[in-house]
């Protein structure tokens, strides 16, 4: 399900991915994780082991679309990377999770879109606070990067730095 060979776009550029996604079914012995390994744990797994993983620069977590960002209110600042899964691209819940993290909790770390992530949604993802995107390996990276800039203006405030048009007039 989770494609670790996929293409990573981060901060508007094609990037190397050194984070490994861990599936929900995958059993992993956290004591054997070396400092040089970077892993993204399923949220439930992360929560169970919170005392051990919180604050570690090489352990992130991922939220599934039927979970919620709310429980992360007080702890997210000590998580280096939060990935949000799109099981199908048309499931738009993850956009609100990212906005919750950025706008309500002022989360500054990396928010990564994973799963069925499509270039044509990238402009929207970015405006909701995502700054990295794990795309299917067959996607043309140039297309994806171009899509990030589909629109140069926005009518409404988002989680990016854009000012709504009505304030610019």
């Amino acid at each position: 399900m989770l494609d670790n060979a996929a293409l990573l776009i981060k901060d508007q550029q094609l990037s190397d991915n050194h984070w490994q996604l861990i599936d929900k079914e995958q059993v992993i012995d956290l004591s054997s994780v070396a400092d040089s390994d970077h892993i993204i744990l399923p949220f439930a797994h992360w929560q169970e082991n919170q005392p051990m993983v919180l604050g570690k620069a090489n352990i992130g977590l991922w939220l599934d679309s039927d979970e919620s960002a709310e429980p992360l209110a007080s702890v997210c600042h000590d998580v280096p990377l939060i990935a949000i899964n799109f099981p199908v691209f048309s499931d738009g819940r993850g956009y609100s999770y990212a906005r919750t993290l950025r706008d309500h909790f002022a989360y500054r770390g990396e928010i990564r879109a994973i799963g069925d992530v499509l270039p044509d949604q990238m402009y929207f993802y970015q405006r909701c606070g995502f700054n990295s995107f794990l795309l299917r390996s067959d996607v043309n990276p140039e297309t994806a990067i171009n899509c990030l800039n589909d629109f140069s203006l926005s009518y409404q405030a988002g989680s990016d730095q854009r000012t709504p048009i009505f304030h610019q007039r």
Partner: protein
Amino acid sequence: MYQYDHYDRQVIKERVDQYRNQTQRFLAGEISEAEFLPLRLQNGLYVQRLAPMLRVAVPYGLYNTAQMRKLAAITRDYDKGYIHVSTRQNFQLNWPRLEDVPDILDELASVDMHAVQTSGNCIRNTTTDQYAGVAVDEIEDPRPWCELIRQWSTFHPEFALLPRKFKIAVCATEEDRAAFKFHDIGVELIHNDAGETAFNIHVGGGLGRTPVISQLIKPNLAWPHLITYLEAVLRVYNQLGRRDNKYKARIKILVKAMGAEAFAARVDQEWQFIKDNDNTLNIEAVDRVKAFFIPHDYQSVDDQVSNERLQSQRLESTAFNRWLDKNVQPHKQPGYAIVNLALKPTGIAPGDISDYQMEAIADLADRFSGGLLRNTHHQNIVLADVKKDDLFELWQCCESLAIATPNLGYLSDPICCPGGDYCALANAKSIPIAEAVQRQFDDLDYLYDLGPIDLNISGCMNACGHHHVGHIGILGVDKKGKEFYQISLGGNMSREASIGKILGPSFSSEEIPEVIQKILDVYVNKRTDEEPFIDTYRRLGIAPFKEYVYAG
């Protein structure tokens, strides 16, 4: 009306470029059918039974004659020379080629039009009263607020893939002509105790498979907070609305499941976070938009003299007299009137007009009504600022264009979806049903005697023809592969909103005119003096109708 500036134009231009690129990648096989689907839908492009259908946005139903002429040219150059006025005040083209759509969008952009978010699971066109700005019972012009909602919801990054489509209506009048209680959000404009604009926010109304009347969750919301509050509602819905079953995905199901109070509390909690953020409206932003809706440049006319002239013109022509009574509405400006152009002549699909009619209507609007037009959710067109002194001449022009049938709001002026003739989702045809009823009931005196009756026809449960809220509703159903029709009675789309009750087992298309006749017979027999159909129904309930229709 609202005028685009370079910001609006830039956004729409970028949209056309984006969609052209997407279409090219789709045709080149880089984007799959499934992935292309929401992209084209968010641009109003459906793939229908026979051809694609392109829905063009008409924000809150208002447009100008340059736009109308451009649309007429588009129907000629890219389609079959006619267009359809939809029940949500938009236009629909029935035969564009998928490959041509980027070019059509380019043409639309040249007159500041687009097809943005006219379909798909996103925030759709915000609708309002077709008489906005000129209605006598209006608290305040709702259109500036509609425009502000339009701007906020256009390419909203968070709400492009909601559980289901989302519709907002704004109502600012005594009599509700926007059916706001049947929208996902109904924004009811009020003036608070201090005389300031405020809003009652109603949530969770809708038609479709489960018709529901909305509930008030936020009374008296101060105007600066309109946008942030809407955003809070949408954010809660986006996260909690059901996505496992498309028939249970509308916000009405969520509000019912949580209870209106709990839902309101959740929204409030969300709203506290964003209440005063950058989306908060300020007086400059509102005034800027309001300035586009300043009243028409009215001439001072002696109303009494105009009325006297009309009086003598009435005597000259019964046909004019009827038209004046039925299709012309009072205007808040003395000496002026609101005119409805009737798009339901028998034998033509309700709401369809030809390119030739479109151009002629544009000429009429230029000549008689300040160059502006409005689509109504009854699928007619309104000229909102006509001098009473011009009515006779305008009527003559309408007669020659076959848009003067004096039947507005009567049985032969049905709301009717495209149905099985066009729509891939249909269970049954709806246009021939409308026509059969129009043929059976073509005696105007009889229709007037019956009084106003809303007949609403949908070809399937999606209820684009708003059958639940017709005084008489007709719904196409599929019975073992055959087209049948279920009748409901007692729906109402005004302030005393109600949802129709199903009469009983469904009928074949041939039976419909006779069944309607029987329903009307019961009404005529049982009504008290001057009692409209809906009141008789409410007094008696469905039983006597049912009994008579199904007897022997």
